[in-house]
């Protein structure tokens, strides 16, 4: 059942966004990875999932907020059964499990992860919000896993917050060169570097007029 629904969601995502993966800094080959992406919509991990080759898709788990994905039976089904998400508790005060520990546990089963280091969906009008420190702790926890920046473009226009009808627009997911925490790198330095690496993949940063010439 989960598989069929997963296939239907994938087909729908392609119909609406004709999404294409652009593997610029890394090839779509096997290997454990942590994909970190910008977060503008609940559909973000679906797009990354769609552009991954099927073999890799089956071994990739998105990391998502339990508060959202456990709220209704429908979301619970999609989050758990279809996407096999690692559901983490985002409320610092009364959580029982440590999110970083949960993610490391998932990595140790051999899965790749999709994480959104901004923490919540970006509605600020800025290209990226400051990264949460979880990405650093995750990278420190499993230093031999590549962190791959993945820029999702245009999905925020497809379905802005509060709208429920998606507009068909072409989206792309651009994968950049992998990075790891350097020797002696501080938390803030690493987060800044990761953020810059992700932002550099945004097509809006490359002046669009330059492409034509």
């Amino acid at each position, binding site marked *: 059942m989960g598989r069929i629904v997963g296939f239907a969601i994938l087909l729908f995502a392609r119909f609406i966004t004709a999404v294409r993966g652009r593997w610029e800094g890394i090839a779509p080959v096997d290997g454990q990875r942590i994909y970190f992406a910008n977060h503008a919509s609940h559909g973000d991990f679906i797009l990354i999932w769609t552009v991954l080759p099927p073999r890799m898709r089956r071994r990739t788990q998105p990391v998502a907020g339990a508060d959202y994905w456990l709220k209704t039976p429908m979301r619970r089904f999609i989050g758990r059964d279809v996407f096999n998400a690692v559901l983490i508790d985002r409320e610092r005060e009364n959580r029982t499990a440590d999110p970083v520990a949960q993610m490391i546990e998932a990595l140790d089963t051999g899965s790749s992860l999709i994480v959104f280091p901004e923490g919540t969906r970006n509605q600020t009008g800025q290209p990226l919000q400051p990264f949460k420190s979880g990405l650093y702790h995750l990278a420190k926890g499993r230093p031999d896993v590549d962190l791959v920046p993945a820029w999702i473009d*245009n999905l925020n*226009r497809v379905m*802005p917050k509060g709208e429920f009808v998606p*507009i068909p627009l*072409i989206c792309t997911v651009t994968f950049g060169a992998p990075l790891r925490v350097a020797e002696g790198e501080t938390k803030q330095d690493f987060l800044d570097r990761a953020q810059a690496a992700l932002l550099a993949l945004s097509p809006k940063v490359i002046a*669009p007029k330059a*492409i034509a010439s």
Partner: protein
Amino acid sequence: MSFPSSDLVTVLAGIVVVLIVASVIGYALQRASSEPNAVIENLNDRIQAWWIMVVLMGLALIGGKTGVTVLLGFCSFAALREFATLTDTRRADHWALAAAFFVVLPVQYYLIWISWYGLYSIFIPVYAFLLLPIIAVLRGDTDKFLVRVAEVQWALMICVFCVSHVPALLSLEIPGYEGRNVLLIAFLVIVVQMSDVLQYVWGKLLGRTKIAPKLSPSKTVEGFVGGALSATAVGAGLGWMTPFTPWQAALLSFVIVLMGFFGGLVMSAIKRDRGVKDWGNLIAGHGGFIDRLDSVIFSAPIFFHVVRYFWSAV
């Protein structure tokens, strides 16, 4: 599904033969060149794209009115998706765009399917053009309002209204030509495609003088003249599959070729304005749907109305 007429079978078989010859030549060229050659690779990519187009178009033509209407409806959808991606539309246009995709497009193709000429010929330029700005204005965002409204209107005009005139050819009633209207579509598409190919070939052989260096550096006067004249000759030679005499077929072909050429220039200008090389990324290196459709977009409505005025009973 209707039984395809023998003429249609002849046309499709002819196209398949031409494509087989083209594929063999492309393969031989690739084998013969010692190092990878961009021109040959591009040629083979194009031949491959034509195979896909011919198979889809052939299936649609055999499927009759429903098949053609559904296929072109999907083409419109994909084209509109590409066009909308490059516009400046924003949050406040969300409902206008949703209406364009999920109301205007299906309604236009439904009207074509039921052959309601009186409504499908004005549905977009009158009703959609007035309704969509009303939907947009209700959101209250006036910044760049005229630009945004014009973009949505143009997107609909180019991607839906113009393209829908291809299946509309099936609703014409030409005395003595009953049941063979799909051949008009085949005629239009073959002439447009041959014009593109022959302009490319003549341009490669003789091209010296650039015709529009700012817009389309690969287009040359020699390529255009040679391509237009030879495509017109091809059109005249295809007169047997149409209700036209060879001279009429030649004249109509010339109109199709001219509109296709200038349509290509207009679409290039839009791409330049938006700072992109291709409309989309349908298949790697092939550009998008609009890149493949641009010449048909401009010629289809004109061809439709000329044929309707001079030949059709309705």
